[in-house]
């Protein structure tokens, strides 16, 4: 016989399901009312039919592939540039004086507010989207790189001097390993921002493919079923990426206590 504790734990899991189930059934019920409701809501069977339609035509896979590719490319570009910029700021006072004020000023502008500027300069498609995504992952990596290296530098460079290491060896053997965990945290933030801005830029730049573009087309065609499916996919992908990078961090820095 299971102990009372186990039953209670199961019961608390069930309580968590009450609200999602209520929402789902209200949703389904709303969709079955009159025509105006059916326009905005969709039944389970419609959602299921929409899912198989998207999967058979390959629309979901293709657009998911485009979005993930964009997020990762943007992350790679933004994080690399961010790492270089942050490093320069940590080691050169001149670089810090020149870059820090611009960094702090430009960062104040909401990223989506830059959309019309990029649209005028680079058009409505892939280039503009990639710039927005790269920029979103650039910001956190600059900050993490600069701050972690700045802190390390003071503490350990003296050891390097005692050991008569040259600047490059100090950077490679002392600063970089010590700063790496915090930089990695910055990169994991950058991944979350990259995914968010991928979807955001796809919603705001109408040309090309991606889950955001799929959503905007679905909205224009009043296909609530597709919107729901894509939203769930976006949420699951975001969750999966966060989980993956957390586990990766734990694995990479397992030597840390």
């Amino acid at each position, binding site marked *: 016989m299971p102990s009372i504790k186990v039953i209670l734990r199961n019961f*608390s899991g069930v*309580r*968590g*399901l*009450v*609200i*999602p189930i209520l*929402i789902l059934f209200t949703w389904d019920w709303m969709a079955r009312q009159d025509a105006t409701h059916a326009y*905005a809501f969709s039944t389970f069977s419609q959602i299921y039919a929409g899912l198989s339609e998207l999967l058979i035509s390959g629309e979901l896979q293709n657009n998911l592939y485009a979005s993930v590719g964009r997020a990762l490319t943007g992350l790679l570009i933004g994080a690399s540039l961010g790492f270089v910029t942050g490093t320069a*700021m940590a080691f050169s006072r001149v670089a*810090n*004086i*020149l*870059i*820090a*004020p*611009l*960094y*702090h*000023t*430009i960062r*104040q*502008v*909401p*990223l*989506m*507010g*830059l*959309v*019309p*500027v990029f*649209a*005028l*300069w680079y058009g409505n498609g892939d280039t503009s989207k990639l710039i927005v995504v790269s920029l979103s992952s650039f910001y956190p990596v600059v*900050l993490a790189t*600069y*701050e972690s290296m*700045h802190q390390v530098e003071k503490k350990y460079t003296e050891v390097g001097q005692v050991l008569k290491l040259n600047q490059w060896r100090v950077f490679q053997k002392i600063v970089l390993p010590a700063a790496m965990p915090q930089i990695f945290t910055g990169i994991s933030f950058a991944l979350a921002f990259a*995914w*968010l801005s991928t*979807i*955001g830029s796809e*919603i*705001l730049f109408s040309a090309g493919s991606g889950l*955001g573009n799929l*959503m*905007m087309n*679905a*909205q224009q065609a*009043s296909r*609530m079923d597709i*919107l*729901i499916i*894509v*939203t769930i996919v*976006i*949420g*699951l992908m*975001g*969750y999966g990426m966060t989980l993956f990078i957390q586990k990766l961090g734990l694995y990479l820095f397992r030597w840390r206590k």
Partner: protein
Amino acid sequence: MGNTHLGWKAWISPILLILAWWWVSKSGHYSTDVLVPPQDVWLSFKELLSSGELFQHLSVSLTRLAIGFLVGAASGVLFGILMAVSSQTEAFFLPTFQALRQIPTITLIPILILLLGVDETFKIIIVFKSAFLTVALAAYEATKGVSKNYFEVAKIYQLSTYSVYRKLVLPAIVPPVFTGLRIAFSRSWTILVAAELLASDSGIGQMMQLGREMFRLDVVMVGVVITGIIGFSIDRILKLGEMKLIPWQNRQLS
């Protein structure tokens, strides 16, 4: 990397940038449609200001922001505390709450447009959602973090429920909740600008969108600068409020 310790040197690169911008646009390599000279941006700023257009757009945007953010933040604080102190509420709501948190707010824009149309309701709801979830999470985690020992001490002293919240919970959760408020504000502002760019007949985002459609880079640039200044100023105000309310944290402006 605060600007404070740089002093006057913090002005070097922004001034250099504006000079370079002015010089390149003057050289005539690019058409003024692509690279609008800084003095043109300044002129259209004055024009938008004196015609009252800018003020009109701003007051619409800020009203949306104020309603959505204030209602969202206030109910977020209450809901977060409730979820932390009541295990029933937590069991019922936390899983749904955590699932919703995985969905970027911007993803909800197309759904909300389909459900509510492009009217005011849609914009206020999206700001509300963005503020509510962020603040509720901050309040929930902060309240959960208050040590159980404190509650036991309060029990021994037989403090009333009111005193427990007033003297124990509130002071403990104010700092993290304030951090949550600042994050929530910046998210709300970004999402409002995005919503206005996408579907609106007024507001600062719509002004920028119109500028984009009419190839008026000067108008777009005015919008960029204004949205930046507003984001920055309100963050500063929240930060000052934080320092006033929580003097013992003695944080620096950064």
